[in-house]
């Protein structure tokens, strides 16, 4: 489905995740972040988002473990940056799919 986020029409799934990561930009990220309860994206947030987008482009599955080993952020910091949902919030703001199980 289509959704207008920060003045740009993008394709999203039923949970609001972008289905085409190339449609993403920083204004979209900032808007989704506010919806997810993060009023301001700091440089640290942006480093994490950039790392996530690189990993997604390389086809690497996103896990809390792999993010903790990234040298970008510790797992503790990840929870502080994206309270209550480090995986689902960070992936949504980064414009990449949510990490999922098989069902």
């Amino acid at each position, binding site marked *: 489905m289509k959704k207008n986020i920060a003045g740009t029409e993008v394709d999203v799934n039923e949970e609001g995740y972008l289905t085409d990561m190339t449609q993403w930009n920083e204004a979209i990220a900032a808007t989704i972040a506010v919806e997810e309860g993060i009023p301001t994206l700091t440089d640290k947030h942006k480093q994490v988002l950039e790392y996530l987008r690189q990993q997604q482009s390389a086809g690497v599955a996103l896990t809390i473990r792999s993010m903790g080993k990234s040298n970008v952020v510790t797992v503790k910091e990840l929870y502080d940056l994206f309270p209550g949902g480090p995986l689902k919030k960070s992936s949504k703001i980064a414009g990449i799919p949510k990490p999922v199980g098989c*069902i």
Partner: protein
Amino acid sequence: MNKHLLILGAGTAGTMMANHLRKRLSKSEWRITIVDRSEKHLYQPGLLFLPFGIYEESDIIRPTRDFLPDNVEFIQAEIDAITPDTHSVTLKEGSTLTYDVLIIATGCHTAPEETQGMLGPKWRDNIHDFYTLDGARALRDKLANWPGGKLVMHVNEMPIKCPVAPLEFIFLADDFLREKNMRDKVSITYVTPLSGAFTKPKAAKKLGHLLTDKGIELVTEFAVEHVDQEQNRLVCYDGREVPYDLLVTIPTNMGDAVIQRSGLGDDLNFIPTHKNTLQSLKYPDVFVLGDATNVPTSKAGSVAHFESETLADNVLLHIEGKPLKAEFDGHANCFIESGDGKALLIDFNYEIEPHEGGFPFSFGPMSLLDESRINHWGKLAFRHIYWNILLKALPMPGISRQKKMPAEV
């Protein structure tokens, strides 16, 4: 007999490949050898049933050799190192095997040592796993006399083999405790690193009620920083705590240590593998299937089964110097015990999430993403299919290697 096909691992995937390729490679030209540390074949799906006394050990263990064809040499040995640059594999006892084509099917295993505080004095006392024979056995003995309390089912991190098994465990535990008239003495909590028990929209919509119906509490996005064995609680990086009286955990799953020793894997020892051809991304003479790969589908026997059909074709094409078939689509097909004599069945691939419909045909007789008794009978019957048809790579009518498209996507 001047060529050598070497298969590492005689689990589900390796055994199927030995059977496929012994039928298809000329016996005068190709020798086939398969190596495994064990001479016993474990029916891994049966481990789920062992703690509840539904299966006995004798139901789920058979001699490995019984499932290998004649003219395949079986070597029981630990593998020390794989060296693709010299086409050689060294065994722990010192001998070296060389190959023309190598198939790696070394699987994955649980690694509780990856989580701080998981191994310790209370491991196998009130902290249990059921992904190993020892663990399932110890959990059976624990449950037999457990007075009740807080039962916590915990998944440490993804990927794990058979990702639905922890859900099946709590559904079967709910049944087991009801039958013992002690369900009211037990709280059941499911702790997951993902954002929900069901993360795919169709499954979440159709199955989300199962947990609430059975009175199971859900804790999500929980990454365990350490297990506090003194206070009997799981501690998350963000400070959340989940107390337990009996913890059943799925520890981190990792590929075999030989993959790490040989420098062939990622940080969880899974081997970078082409997700459609199953050829190693680095070495053209090396193929990988089953739990050992890094391909983005479930680690499950059904996946190994579907992969084995594509890989058998591709090994022959590779030997003939022809282009490989890029056809493996991530197809997985799994029964999910939902308790009360019922089960669900799911069918999916890289692109298509689990959906409703009939299986294996559009009219059934089994039903996808739906609880039914016939699905449960299918799951129980599957053990016989596994031993007698699947491992021997005999055809399974109506079951195709690529996923059949659903009526509505």
